[in-house]
């Protein structure tokens, strides 16, 4: 297997050189040359304007499966403490869109112990079917039991797309299910589209800390599985549609799992709900100190906003870890995001770029955050924010 460059067609434009994350292509006499550290990721194939790059594959007999047998979009719900995780509901809105394009059903698969009285309320979110797997033990999450139930259901029902929240739970069972099914799985997608020609799911995700985006597809196997972080897609609208409810009682016992849950510890002080916040005020290193962070909190209070911050503010102990926004923190999409003293490293941007309106306040006119902001203010946040707080208070009184 290798990347082949057609030397006749290559014009030496170097697009491929720039597209390679591994520095595995260089120009030799104005012709692209692939080096030995190439990982065959295929990123260079698409960028060549001359179509001079191809990937040579070995002739290997792979088991072909009939992908046309697979129909339908599934969302696997996550639940904890009798509550459905918001990301699962958000996936219903995206799932509806994909199912409508593909003209197939949208199913909501729920594994739990006590959702009988919640099914009616859940029915409002626009799915065609709810598959409720009920067993007392499923009040908790067990990776092996989830894997067993989900793979059995998939083999029986053959959905073409399965979407799962990219939470620690989803990221735990999704790969195990994918492996058992030998299905392709793409982690942390921020974009999902259907390729109308082939019916393939095009899964776009940030990679290399969000420096680059990759669009991935699973052309020859089914189901196509993807995980998605909370806050990427909007909550679904309620509808009057009545889904079919399939309730399956599953006879599990505690000994069916190799793992034993000893205890669940909740360290929550106050629940921080950044993912659903309408307004977020976030601070970065530029705020200056833990004491000075108080002004950011004050702005959040008058706006009735949630407080957030970049990774460094958590590392410096200015802010609690559950308020971190970005690649290793939360992904948010509020109506208004005010970034105060945040320079805008890409790792932060990937966590907040879907905000409707972004306001950036920063001393440095060249801070990358301004590339993402709708309104930019170059200046000292400690001068601007107090005035802004007073103005907002005035507006509130007028209202």
């Amino acid at each position: 297997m290798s990347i082949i460059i057609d030397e006749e067609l290559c014009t030496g434009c170097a697009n491929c050189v720039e597209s390679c994350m591994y520095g595995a292509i260089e120009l030799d006499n104005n012709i692209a040359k692939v080096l030995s550290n190439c990982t065959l990721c295929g990123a260079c194939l698409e960028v060549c304007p001359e179509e001079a790059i191809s990937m040579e594959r070995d002739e290997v007999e792979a088991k072909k499966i009939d992908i046309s047998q697979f129909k339908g979009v599934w969302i696997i719900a996550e639940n904890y403490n009798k509550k459905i995780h918001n990301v699962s509901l958000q996936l219903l809105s995206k799932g509806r869109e994909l199912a409508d394009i593909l003209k197939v059903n949208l199913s909501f698969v729920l594994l739990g112990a006590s959702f009988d009285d919640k099914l009616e309320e859940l029915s409002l979110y626009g799915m065609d079917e709810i598959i409720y797997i009920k067993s007392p033990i499923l009040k908790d999450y067990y990776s092996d039991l989830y894997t067993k139930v989900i793979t059995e259901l998939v083999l029986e029902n053959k959905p073409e797309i399965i979407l799962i929240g990219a939470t620690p739970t989803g990221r735990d069972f999704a790969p195990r299910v994918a492996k058992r099914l030998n299905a392709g799985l793409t982690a942390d997608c921020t974009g999902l589209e259907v390729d109308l020609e082939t019916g393939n799911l095009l899964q776009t995700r940030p990679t290399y800390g969000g420096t680059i985006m990759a669009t991935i597809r699973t052309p020859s196997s089914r189901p196509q599985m993807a995980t998605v972080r909370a806050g990427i897609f909007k909550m679904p609208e309620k509808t009057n549609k009545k889904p079919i409810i399939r309730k399956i009682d599953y006879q599990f016992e505690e000994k069916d799992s190799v793992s034993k849950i000893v205890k669940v510890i909740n360290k929550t002080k106050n629940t921080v709900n950044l993912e659903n916040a309408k307004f977020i005020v976030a601070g970065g290193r530029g705020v200056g100190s833990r004491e000075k962070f108080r002004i950011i909190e004050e702005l959040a209070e008058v706006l009735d906003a949630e407080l957030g911050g970049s990774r460094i503010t958590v590392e410096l102990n200015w802010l609690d870890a559950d308020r971190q926004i970005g690649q290793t923190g939360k992904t948010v999409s509020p109506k208004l995001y005010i970034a105060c003293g945040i320079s805008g490293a890409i790792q932060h941007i990937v966590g907040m770029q879907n905000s409707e309106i972004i306001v950036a306040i920063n001393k440095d006119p060249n801070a990358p955050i301004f590339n993402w902001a709708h309104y930019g203010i170059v200046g000292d946040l400690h001068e601007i924010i107090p005035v802004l707080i007073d103005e907002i208070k005035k507006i509130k009184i007028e209202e």
Partner: protein
Amino acid sequence: MCIKQVPGVSEVKINPNTNTLVREGVISILNPNDRNALELALILKEKQSAEVIAISMGPPQAEEILREALAMGVDKGFLLSDRVFAGADTLATSHTLALAIKKLLKDSNSEEKYLIICGAQAVDGDTGQVPPELAEELGIPQITYVQKVELSADKILVERKFKATEIVIIETKLPAVISVLSDINKPRYPSMAGIMKAYDKANVIYLDANALNADKSKIGLNGSMTEVRKIFFPERKVNPIMLEGSTEEIVQKLCQHLKEDKIF
């Protein structure tokens, strides 16, 4: 221990003028989270009498990170390196790693008692998918996102962080696969003696597809179900409206805009 060589991501930047990658000065490093996995393995080795083996899949240059692991105190390093392994997605990667693990266990007659430790995720792909897929290949339990471990003769007790503020304590039987978070420990630096040993005496053992008796349809590009369709740079979404003037004017302008946008 499964470890990975990655590009030092925090140094990868985009030139805003040409919208291309600036790769100068970017070096390949041991994935930071894998250091925590190494540290944990070494701590467990000190408490129990165990052999610590590091395995990596990658091009020959990935030998560097295995040397680093040896310098930290790992007993043996294996590099799975072959052109046919290239282009692997997580399915093919976990298959290849599992083949090597099975081979090493068989060769050393220790098929019953082992623990596989991985970092929770790598900074390049950042999928975190390999540890569960590896556990499935080996047919053993997995516990991901671990922040504390107690190992005993035939089982482990771990703290798994499953929400920002919530932890579940799980007990499972060995053998098992765990993936650890970066806050589990503070990785040690290699000692001088360790470095000398790692570079002078110790060998990194290379294993290729033949040594692993690999089925070509299950490794590398052929064994991968996902394929990269295209790669692009995240685009700058908007041209900001820069608000200028005195502080009062700036604040007035901002509030006016936010009213027009129906935020207030």
